[in-house]
């Protein structure tokens, strides 16, 4: 409603404004890739690789922007709103925070989570000579390590990483199309190792294949720096799903071993009086009854 204060003059304009209103079923989140004040080589290649990984759901801003999201997020919120992105990654480097990445997401055009990561070690896509995966491939995500569940910040970071790398939600997946896996391991010193592998499905003598992996990059080790996560209340509110999407349990339905589904329906009591039986002379109504 808020966008409609100035009435759109054309039908197309109206459609665009309507698309910006909150939707019941949302499209996949777009990601904004922004360069900060100054970028080192590592950060530049990382941003390039993120673009490669995210491709059609990604928007790259080439110029450097003087943005410090922890101090003043307004300009970042503005850029995200203009580009219709709700995820963002901002790279910068400084003496105090070398090779700095800020990952985050927005809710209602305001910043929900902000997590700062420092790159400790980085190897880009180009450094691996192995065969790459195609674009628009939905990756499998693997989170290993007992630390992931330790603090709220880490839990939120895991959620953010899932949000960032999961691509669109799909109803079905081609079995041969599962060819990329991104793994995040939380190590003992709370640093995060990100690895990306190509999956090859090998014969196993059974229906399910055996998996073999080859690393394709990017490979990086992150350290967690500053965090600014949303309050529990707001986070809960942002995750609320509409009633319409929730599936209600269907009653009176069962499946048998062959995969057929059986339904049970209820019909009212049959009226025997009106039942059509075989006509016979003897059963004919007499004139008295008439």
């Amino acid at each position, binding site marked *: *409603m808020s966008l*409609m*204060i100035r*009435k759109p003059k054309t039908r197309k304009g109206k459609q665009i404004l309507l698309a910006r*209103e*909150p*939707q*019941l079923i*949302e499209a996949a989140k777009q990601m904004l890739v922004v360069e900060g004040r100054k970028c080192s080589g590592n950060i530049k290649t990382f941003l390039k690789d993120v673009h490669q990984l995210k491709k059609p759901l990604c928007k790259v801003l080439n110029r450097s922007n003087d943005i410090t999201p922890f101090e003043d997020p307004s300009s970042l919120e503005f850029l995200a709103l203009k580009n219709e992105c709700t995820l963002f990654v901002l790279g910068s480097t400084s003496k105090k925070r070398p090779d700095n990445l800020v990952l985050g997401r927005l*809710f209602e055009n305001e910043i*929900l989570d902000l997590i700062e990561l420092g790159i400790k070690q980085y190897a880009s896509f180009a450094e691996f000579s192995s065969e790459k995966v195609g674009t628009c491939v*939905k*990756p*499998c*995500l*693997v*989170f*290993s*390590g*007992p630390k*992931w*569940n330790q603090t709220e910040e880490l839990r939120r970071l895991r*959620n953010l990483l*899932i*949000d960032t790398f*999961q691509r669109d*939600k799909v*109803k*079905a*997946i*081609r*079995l*041969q*199309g*599962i060819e990329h*896996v991104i*793994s995040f*391991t939380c*190590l*003992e010193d709370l640093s995060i190792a990100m*690895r990306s*592998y190509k*999956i090859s499905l*090998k014969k*196993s*003598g*059974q*229906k*399910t*294949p*055996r*998996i073999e*992996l080859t690393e394709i990059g990017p490979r990086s080790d992150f350290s967690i720096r500053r965090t600014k996560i949303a309050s529990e209340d707001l*986070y809960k509110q*942002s*995750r*609320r*799903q509409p009633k319409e999407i929730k*599936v209600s349990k269907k009653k009176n339905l069962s499946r048998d071993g062959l*995969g057929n589904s059986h339904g049970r329906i209820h019909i009212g009591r049959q009226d025997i009086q009106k039942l059509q039986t075989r006509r016979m002379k003897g059963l004919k109504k007499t004139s008295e009854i008439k």
Partner: protein
Amino acid sequence: MEVVKEILEKQQKDLEKYKPITVEKHLDCRIDVGTLLITDPNDLDEGLLKENKEEYLKDITRDNLQLLINEIWTLPTERVEESIVAVLPLPTTSLPRSRKIPGPKVMTKWEKFAKEKGIQKKKKDKKVFDETLDKWVPTYGFKRADAEKQKEWVLEVPKNVNPMEDMFQKKIDLRQEKVAKNEIQRMKNIVRAKRQETPRAGYLGPEAASSTQLLTAATIAKASTASVGKFQAKIAKEKQARGIGVKELIPGSKRKASHLSTVPEKEANLDLIRSVLHKKPKIDVDKAVSLQKKESRLEREAMEDGGQRKKKGGKGGKKGGSGGFKKSKGGKKPKGGMGQRAPGKKNAIGRKRR
């Protein structure tokens, strides 16, 4: 029997050729097949990690992924355009939305009124037959203005207006005024729709709150003491908050009944008419008694007056000659306390009490 054994052995050999697809884990992994996600809470092996980090990470990932793949391969499959797809269940990981869930559309003032009164939208025909033009003309939109121009090519100047006034211009102005009014109403509807989201009571901050909101907040705050604001100091030229529904917010003040009664409109109106037409005078017993008393007293006094006048005539009309009680002349009430005075007792010393 030997044949069976042979086949089984052969199969065993075949299986040995391949590496296993089963994975042993100490703790169960959480798998979300809908998002192709697996979370492994098992401890990492520090020794192996130090020895060869890359190899170890790859092994862990492979094992976890194998678990996920095993799960995916058990899903029901479909054939879509020469390829086999697995139908994924709904994701169990809840991720934040990018916008709120859209709420119900807020009704405009007219829509609300129409719903209350049960007014339904009538669909107009796109074209109506015009008898002066003798053809079908559009009711709105394309070429409607054109048809209007053809129809009203001349306009009558009424007697009571200035003959030099341009009637065509007047018509245009009238129309523009209507458009402007409509725009204002649209804006008001937007404001009304916005206002529903903000709380009616409470302080919104100096930037956001309007003067009426501030006044309401002040009034509510003042009345929110244990004694409903009875002992609060009053400021000079203080105003009380007013408006629809404000009283409900102020503690201690009475609610007004809704103008919408539970009785249907027609019945309520009929009741009203009936009460007016069949009006009967009320009998107030006290009033009747007092009236009766007054009448009888007047009568009595008239009788007495007749007797006294004779006496007066004898006395020569002197007023209050003798001391003591005067007899009252007319229907004057005796003053409070005047009648019962102790004659011997002196009045209390001090200022005169009234």
